[in-house]
């Protein structure tokens, strides 16, 4: 039982079913009374010491009759399930694995079975085989098998398309072996779920037929259905009888249903990235810290000033900090690149500015001061609630994300989606909105805006969809655009156009851009300043020119050396040994230390601060590096 990993509810349900099953199958040995034994003096008695669940109209013990009745029920369920599984799973596997005409044929049969008016067929089968429960249950199983067939076929198809199955095929394994090694194990779960749900249905159907007197009449013996019928006849005298007779049905079906749900809810073992982004109220710190004054950049207060930003997400053993103590600024109209590899935390930082951290994630410390256009008020993005974010999102900060095709609602036309966003930020008539829609589509350089506005997202190419996504982000005239890997999913030629567009928009609209990327080429093309993120920390900050010409942090330097564009051809590519440390094992000192060839014991003696570095002559100010050896390493 434990290996099945059932939830507590599942265990209770399973336990209950086991008890009922044993009681029913063991009825001849366990029942306190003979089910037909009458005692008219004790008719319709409520629960008592002699009769735990009372008696019926003829004084027969209800508990005993329920136990014998259970026997009928479980046999019927077994018969139905047998046919259900053999037909449903068998045909489903064949259809899913073989495909082609076999699939089409089986699907045709399946649709036919599904469309049959079930009860009519059952009634007729009952007429053909009176009092033969097996035939009726087999018919029920056959008619419902398309449900299991569909599920089985779906899973088989899905698994067949999995890359590891393709690899197995290309390893030379035969179809049979692949079936056994890869497909059948994946089917066990879904089939179990469906079997439980169907078993529940079978219990209900069997008891309905029995209730109507069409199967197992009372003269043959007790069944749960005919016991309810019996109770129905005497409701005016005694309502109690309805309770145990209905109760056993409800509880059994409930238990089967719960087991079905429990089997379904078992977590998949593959660690799939959770993409359920839901807004969360950021964790409020216990004492309001003093808000530090934002540093000035080039004499003016920056548009966005992030200080000490710390973000945590839920983990299996409690919250895990994935971003710690991040500082950086974005000036108005400037393009700042947040650059790092996967797991660096750069996406978290970007999303936190809009309050769009994944489910359960929250900012646990730090500030993100955002100045609005007029310059008068400042909000702390790290402290906003959902309602307050609604005023910021789209209107003052926009977002463009990585996958253009999945960032648009597939059910609405482009024009309609744009108009909705436009009117959300600025009340205007429908006609005005329509004009603005066309204006925006032209701004993002889409040829034939009229036509695009009428199209659905699935009709757009990747590049067009990304332009639409940018237009949607611009609809509210934001001062800052957060671009989260905006070109990663696009072809290189389309990427160049989109980067060009972003550069143009930045210049024309005076909009600041926070560019999140892992691609150093993209950063070089679009960025003005770079913020290098490693293992949840900022390790270096400089102008883009400085950072490519003269990287100071060993990580930045090694990363640039490993870049295939810069590495000399002919020798092997320079590598960085080791792996990025996972957030669960972070330590206070330099997190790059295990992989750094220049490491010294000083590096892990304590937390390393992000400090200004003296720039070379001609370099710009505002260079920050988190390395105790930053100065020394230059001199080499």
């Amino acid at each position: 039982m434990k290996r099945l990993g059932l939830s507590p509810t599942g265990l209770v349900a399973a336990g209950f079913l086991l008890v009922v099953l044993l009681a029913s199958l063991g009825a001849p040995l366990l029942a306190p009374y003979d089910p037909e034994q009458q005692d008219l003096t004790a008719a319709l008695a409520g629960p008592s010491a002699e009769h735990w669940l009372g008696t019926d109209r003829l004084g027969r013990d209800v508990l005993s009759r329920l136990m014998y009745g259970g026997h009928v029920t479980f046999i019927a369920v077994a018969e139905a399930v047998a046919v259900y599984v053999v037909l449903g799973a068998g045909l489903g596997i064949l259809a899913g694995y073989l495909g082609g005409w076999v699939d089409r044929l089986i699907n045709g049969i399946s649709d036919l079975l599904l469309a049959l008016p079930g009860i009519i067929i059952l009634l007729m089968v009952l007429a053909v085989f009176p009092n033969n429960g097996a035939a009726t249950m087999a018919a029920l199983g056959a008619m419902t098998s398309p449900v299991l067939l569909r599920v089985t076929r779906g899973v088989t198809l899905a698994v067949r398309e999995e890359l590891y199955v393709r690899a197995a095929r290309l390893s030379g394994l035969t179809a049979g072996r692949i079936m056994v090694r890869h497909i059948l194990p994946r089917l066990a779960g879904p089939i179990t779920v469906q079997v439980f749900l169907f078993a529940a249905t079978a219990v209900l159907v069997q008891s309905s037929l029995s209730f109507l007197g069409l199967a197992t009449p009372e003269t043959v013996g007790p069944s749960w259905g005919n016991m309810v019928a019996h109770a129905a006849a005497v409701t005016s005298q005694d309502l109690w009888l309805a309770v145990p007779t209905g109760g056993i049905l409800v509880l059994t079906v409930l238990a089967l249903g719960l087991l079905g749900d429990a089997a379904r809810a078992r977590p998949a073992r593959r660690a799939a990235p959770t993409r359920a982004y839901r807004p969360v109220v950021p964790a409020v710190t216990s004492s309001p810290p003093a808000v530090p004054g934002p540093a000035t950049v080039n004499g003016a207060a920056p548009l966005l000033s992030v200080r000490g930003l710390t973000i945590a997400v839920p983990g299996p053993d409690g919250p895990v900090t994935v971003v710690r103590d991040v500082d950086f600024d974005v000036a108005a109209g400037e393009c700042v690149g947040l650059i790092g590899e996967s797991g660096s935390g750069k996406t978290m930082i970007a999303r936190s500015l809009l309050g769009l951290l994944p489910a359960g994630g929250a900012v646990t410390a730090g500030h993100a001061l955002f100045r609005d256009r007029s310059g008068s008020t400042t909000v702390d993005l790290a402290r906003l609630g959902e309602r307050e974010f609604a005023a910021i999102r789209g209107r003052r900060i926009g977002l463009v994300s990585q996958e253009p095709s999945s960032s648009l609602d597939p059910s609405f036309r482009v024009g309609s989606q744009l108009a909705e966003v436009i009117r959300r930020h600025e009340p205007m008539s429908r006609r005005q909105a329509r004009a603005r829609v066309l204006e925006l589509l032209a701004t993002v350089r889409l040829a034939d805006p009229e036509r695009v506005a009428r199209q659905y997202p699935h009709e757009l190419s990747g590049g067009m969809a990304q332009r639409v996504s940018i237009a949607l982000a611009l609809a509210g005239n934001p001062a800052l655009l957060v671009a989260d890997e905006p070109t990663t999913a696009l072809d290189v030629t389309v990427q160049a156009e989109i980067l060009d567009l972003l550069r143009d928009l930045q210049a024309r609209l005076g909009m600041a851009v926070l560019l999140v990327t892992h691609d150093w080429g993209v950063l070089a093309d679009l960025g003005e300043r770079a913020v290098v993120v490693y293992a949840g920390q900022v390790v270096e900050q400089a102008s883009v020119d400085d950072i490519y010409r003269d990287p100071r942090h060993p990580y930045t330097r090694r990363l640039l050396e490993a870049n295939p564009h810069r590495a000399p051809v002919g020798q092997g590519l320079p590598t960085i040994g080791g792996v990025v440390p996972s957030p669960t094992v972070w330590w206070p000192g330099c997190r790059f230390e295990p992989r750094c060839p220049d490491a010294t014991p000083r590096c892990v003696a304590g937390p390393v601060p992000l400090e200004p570095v003296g720039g070379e002559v001609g370099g710009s100010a505002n260079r920050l590096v988190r390395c105790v050896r930053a100065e020394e390493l230059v001199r080499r």
Partner: protein
Amino acid sequence: MIPERSTPLLSLRNVTVNYGRGRRRLPDAVQDVSLDLTAGETLALVGESGSGKSTVGNVVLGLVPVRAGTVTFAGEDITHATGRRRRELTRHIQPIFQDPYGSLNPVRTIRQTLVEPLLAHERLTAAEQRERVALALSRVGLEPDAADRYPAQFSGGQRQRIAIARALMVSPRLIVCDEPTSALDLSVQAQVLNLLRQLQRELRVSYLFITHDLAIVRHVADRVAVLRRGRIVETGPTEQVYENPREAYTWALIAAAPVPDPEQQRRRRLLTGAAQSGSPGPARPAPAESTSGR
């Protein structure tokens, strides 16, 4: 065409692939493609999405049917090889896929996955199997105890190494690498690429290296073929194609990829940016935007 030093290991002649069936008409996925690959050599197939580069790889692996043309491997025509012949061929032709997360069954240990090629092609005792698995793992730089763990316990780069180990289990002569490093971080990518080169030197295995990233082609490939919309646009030794592209498309492809050097990038933009003004629907020689599904 380069002068042939020896008979090519793999040879495609006028291969055309079309996924349309019956009344459904589709444009050719791959049209009239010819290429050669000699033993111990790496040929890169470069192109954007829809160029057909993955389809060519799938043709070599036997995953898609060929509508026209021939595929020759080690002197044998394998164009329409089916069933048992294909399974036998898997001894000599192996894949490495792009997705390190999907290519290993998550509920099977590494050993169970690595053993599959052995089960298909050789009869070994359990002890012999263990030995071969350990050997393969050490060859890709992993500890032997990795064999008893599950994929979820490894990083992306490590999983790709495991995929390489699986490909090497039966000593193939040709490995089709379909974007093997595209899903990896830069620092890890270098490790995997170096490993592939090293293995090639040690084992004399040939690579059909499919990628969209022109930059790494220079570090891994001896020759490169550029594809566009199912046709080969240009072939030649890597350095030659990179330094002196003959075709406008190749040139556009190289020019479009941004280089990690802001000054150089600015200069490149000026060169290519003549037509990239702020007008809607720029007209340029590179492939224009088009709606899908037509």
